[in-house]
């Protein structure tokens, strides 16, 4: 794979940090949205975080450009966070 060092650093950051943030935001939304007891829903979401994380990490290296990789993580994180906020505080 011929990618510039800066692209690799950026993607690694996206995979590790961006992936962690995305996984958590998805879990926030899921825990708020699942029609279960709050503890049940939270535990369910927690156990799925690693799946989101793995998919996010793979995406970070599969995307065509580093910038696309970041965008593909930040946008769904934002949407998930919005869903969580709406369900939890509105």
């Amino acid at each position, binding site marked *: 794979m011929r990618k510039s060092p800066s692209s690799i650093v950026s993607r690694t950051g996206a995979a590790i940090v961006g992936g962690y943030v995305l996984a958590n935001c998805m879990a926030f939304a899921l825990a708020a949205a699942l029609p279960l007891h709050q*503890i*049940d829903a939270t535990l369910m979401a927690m156990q799925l975080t690693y799946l989101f994380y793995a998919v996010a*990490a*793979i995406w970070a290296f599969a995307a065509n450009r580093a910038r696309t990789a970041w965008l593909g993580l930040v946008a769904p994180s934002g949407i998930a966070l919005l869903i969580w906020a709406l369900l939890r505080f509105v």
Partner: protein
Amino acid sequence: MKFRHSMTWLHTWAGLVFGALLYLMFVTGSAGYFDLEITRWMQPEIPVQQSSFDAPALLPKAEQRLQQLAPHADHVYIELPEGRSPYFMIWWHNPKGVDNPGWHSEVLDPSSGAPVAVRNTAGGEFLYRLHYVLHYIPKGLAYWLTSLAAMFMLVAIVTGVVIHRRIFKDFFTFRRSHRQTAWLDMHNLMGVLPLPFHLMITYSGLILLMFSTMLPVPASSFGLNPEKLRQVYDTVFSDGDHARGNGMAASSLPLVELYNLDHSKHSGATIAYLAVENWGDEKAVVEVGKLAQTGLEPFDVSYYQAVNGESFKGESQLRDRFLSLSFYHVIEHLHEGLFAGPWLRWLYFLSGLMGAGMVATGSIFWAIKRRHAHEKAGLDSRAVRWVENLNVGVIAGLPIAIGGYFLTSRLLSATLENRVDWEMHSLFVVWFVALLHPFLPRRQCDLSQLWAEQFKAAAVVYASIPFVNWMTSEVHLGMSLKYQDWTLVGFDFFALVLAACCAYFVHKINGRQRVSTMETVGVSQ
């Protein structure tokens, strides 16, 4: 094509970056499946069990000993040497306000019931804990590090499957003639055969630490107040107090009567332990655990009121109501494998070792490929040599260190004050030496010579284990074979098997070295 290239790159680096830590986790985690057996070997004061365990005769002795040692305990527990457990052992918990609060234990002779003064040892539990608590660093940091490594592993597994379009065809391919591809084929074999195990063990390992690494999720549901979060955690993981004492002292039935009662109700089941909550209280409850024949729970459990032997029904547990929690428990049981009988336990162990082998061969394959590329391009290959040296010290060095840990345990005085600490240090001291060894300056240094030297050391260490056992204890192969104590036989015998494997590696390496020397000679002529 481009996608597969990216995934190949990711697979390589995800596996490589935490390779050493993952190798350590696979090896020590696998050893953890035999933690009790290892601890038993490390406590040679316990005599070989000479006849089958006679519970009705020995249970009263254990109860008597508990009354003598722990008259004020609120919980007591008697473990019987049945199933996997080699221990006849009593445990008691003193409440606050009594002398020596907390849990204590004593080992009893499984033939006579007399107390046995065993040495302190870090035992198999140390190896088991090493695979996620590590050592010398704070627990919280270790949880994060091991979780991060597991996350890299998960990514390496998924990308590994993605890049193998012909995964099943590759699986049946083994090209031993060609050196570089032989390493790749071996890597594929050890990655694919136990693939379901690797996926399960990695994902479940992550989940078991989720309350450390994914704390933002419960915080998003329940707020940032730590007390509230602690409360949620306790609700989720409390075993549920089955009974509350009322503080009124009452005399209970002798435990052996409850043992017999349960035995008559469930004939054919083997009772593995008895536990009493609120010992000596009017509301005391006795828990009788039997070896489970099926399912993921290691024990089938019944509860009785201690004063009259009537059945006692506890509150229904949270896990029966929450889908997520029953899933969590399945995951936990699968990871820990406590339910596994001897055959499945060995399969767990070997699958774990294959995980270690997968990481190891992957790293070796990477170094070989890099060296080829560097030499072809005429680049400086010192960095590659560095990785090659590390591979030797990690892959061959860790088994030497673990063997050294077992030997140290036997060679240190049984009464030495800090012997548990020194046992643990010994593992790291030996490993450090093994890591250093490939970097020592010497006149001529061939990589395969380093491998051969370390595997030779490993072979010597493991071959000496049964002999050191013979010299330092009464629980050697002569005795254990005579009385068919398979736990002890298994330990010594497996040490010999490991020694044989290492000797075989040395033989292979030397053989290949001869061939390559002959080839070089042939070319120069």
